[in-house]
C-alpha cells in the first residue's frame, strides 16, 4: 500500500464518516440509527489503522483496536440490549423539517472547513484535510442532539460527537498520547454505564424516553 493510496483511502473513509453523520441526522428508526453509528465507528477504526500504517506510528493500532472494541462492538451492543429491554425498538421518531436540517448540516460543513483553514496551512501531515471533516462530524453530532427529542437518539448524537473528536485527534496530530486516549476511552465507558442507568430512570419516571416530557424546570415568571 503506497503512501498516496493510503492518503486517498483515508479521504474516502473521511467522506464515509461524514456521510454516516448525515445519515444519522435524518434516520428515524432506532435500530437503523444504531447500525449507522456502528458503521461510523468501523470507518473510524479502519481510518485510524490506515493512518497508523502510513505514518508508521504504531500506537494508532492500539487506538484503532480500542475504537473497534468500544465503538463498533461494545457500545452498539449495550444500546441494542437497552433498546430491547426498554421495548422501544419499534418507535419511529418524528423529525421535523428534514431539508432544513440538512441545509444547516451543509452550512456546518462549510463553517468547519473555514474554521480549520489555518491548521490546514500549518500542518504537514497527510491527514490535514480530514480535520475539517472531523470538526464537521462533531458539529453534526451537536446538531443531532439539538434537533432530536429522544433520549437514546441524543446519546447516539453525543457518541457521534466523540467519534468526531477522536477523528480530529487522528487527523490533526496522528492521535493524542496514549495515556490520554486510554483515559478518554475509560470516560466513555463510564458515560455508557451512566446513560444506561438514566434510560431506565427516565423511562420509569416519565413513561417515555421522549425528552420533551422533561419540561418541569423552567424559569418561573
Amino acid at each position, binding site marked *: 500500500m503506497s503512501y498516496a*493510496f493510503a492518503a*486517498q*483511502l483515508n*479521504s*474516502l473513509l*473521511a*467522506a*464515509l464518516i*461524514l*456521510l454516516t453523520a*448525515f445519515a444519522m441526522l*435524518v434516520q428515524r428508526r432506532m435500530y437503523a440509527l444504531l447500525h449507522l453509528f456502528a458503521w461510523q465507528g468501523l470507518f473510524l477504526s479502519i481510518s485510524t489503522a490506515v493512518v497508523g500504517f502510513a505514518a508508521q506510528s504504531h500506537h494508532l493500532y492500539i487506538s484503532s483496536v480500542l475504537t473497534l472494541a468500544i465503538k463498533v462492538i461494545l457500545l452498539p451492543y449495550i444500546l441494542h440490549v437497552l433498546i430491547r429491554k426498554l421495548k422501544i425498538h419499534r418507535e419511529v421518531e418524528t423529525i421535523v423539517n*428534514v*431539508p432544513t436540517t*440538512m441545509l444547516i*448540516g*451543509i452550512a456546518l*460543513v*462549510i463553517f468547519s*472547513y473555514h474554521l480549520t483553514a489555518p491548521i490546514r496551512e500549518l500542518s504537514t501531515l497527510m491527514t490535514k*484535510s*480530514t480535520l*475539517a*471533516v472531523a470538526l464537521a462530524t462533531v458539529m453534526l453530532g451537536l446538531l443531532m442532539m439539538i434537533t432530536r427529542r429522544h433520549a437514546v437518539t441524543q446519546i447516539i448524537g453525543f457518541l457521534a460527537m466523540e467519534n468526531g473528536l477522536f477523528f480530529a485527534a487522528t487527523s490533526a496530530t496522528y492521535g493524542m498520547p496514549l495515556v490520554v486516549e486510554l483515559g478518554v476511552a475509560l470516560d466513555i465507558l463510564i458515560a455508557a454505564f451512566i446513560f444506561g442507568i438514566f434510560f431506565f430512570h427516565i423511562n420509569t419516571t416519565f413513561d417515555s424516553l421522549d425528552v420533551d416530557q422533561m419540561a418541569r424546570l423552567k424559569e418561573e415568571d
Partner: protein
Amino acid sequence: MKVHPLLIELIQVFVLLFAAPLFAGWVKMVKCWSQGRTSPSLLQPYRDLCKLFSKDVALAENASWIFRSTPYLVFGVTVLAGGIIPIISVDLPLSATADVIALVALFAIARFFTALAGMDIGTSFGGMGSSREMTIASLAEPAMLMAIFAVSLASKSTSLSQMAIVVSQGYSILRPSLAFALLAFILIALTETGRVPVDNPATHLELTMIHEAMILEYSGRHLALIEWAKMMKLFLFITLGIAVFFPWGIDAAGGAAGLASSFLIMSLKLGISGVGLVLIETGLAKMRIFRVTEFLGSAFLFATLGMLSFFILE
C-alpha cells in the same frame, strides 16, 4: 484499423435502439427470478413493441398536434441523447458538440412535452400525472446538475467523453467527491427512470402512478414509441452512470478490436447493473409521494457534499 468516428456514432445509436429493450427484458427477468416467478422471455419487450406497432392508433377527439407529435419528439430526443453518452467509445463527434448539461436539457425537453401531452386530452389522470412529474422534476434536476458539477470539478470539464477519460485514470473511485456524486446519481437515476421507490413501472393503480398516468391515453405506434423511449432512457441512465463512474474498458483508440472488446465489457457491466437495480428495487418499498421530496433532498445533499469534499479533501 481505425473506424471512422461517424461510423462509431452510427453503431452506437443502433446499439442503443436494439439493446435497450433487451436490457429492459433482462431487468424484468432478474426481477422475476428474485421473486421466485417464472419470467417471460428475454425478447418479450421486442414482441410487445412489434405488437403495438402493428396496431391502429385510437386518438381522442380533442387531441391536438401536441398530443400527436409528442411520441416522435420524445423518441427522437432520446436517440439524440444516446449519441452524446460514450457507450462503446469516447470518440464521438456528438459528444464533442454537446456536453452533459445539454444532455440534461434534452431529457428536460422530452419530459416537458410528455407533461403537456398528459394534460392535452383533459382527463384527470393525465393532469395529475403531469403535475406529479413536474413536481419531482423540479427537485431532481437541480440535484442532477449538482451531481454532475461534482464530477466535472474532478475532471475539470463538462464533456462526457472528457469525464470518462479523466476518471478512468488512477484510483478515481476512491475519490470522495466521486463517491458522493455516485450516490446522488443513483438516487436521481431511480427517480428519473421511474423505478421503485419513487414510481412503479409495473402498476396502473390510480393513486400511485406518475409516469404511466401521463401516457394513459396513448395507443398503437404512439405508445410503442413512448415505451421504447422509456426503455432507452433507463438504458441511457445506466450507461451514463457507467461512463462517468466506471468508465474502465470504454474504447478510446477507435479501432475495431477495441470497439468489440468495449462492447463486451459494456454488456457485462450492464448485466451487473441490471442485477443491482433489481436488488435496490426489491429491497425498497415504494414511497408515499410526499416522501419523495426527502428522497431527492438527500440526493441533493449527497451531490453538495460531493462538491464540498472536492474542496475539503482533495
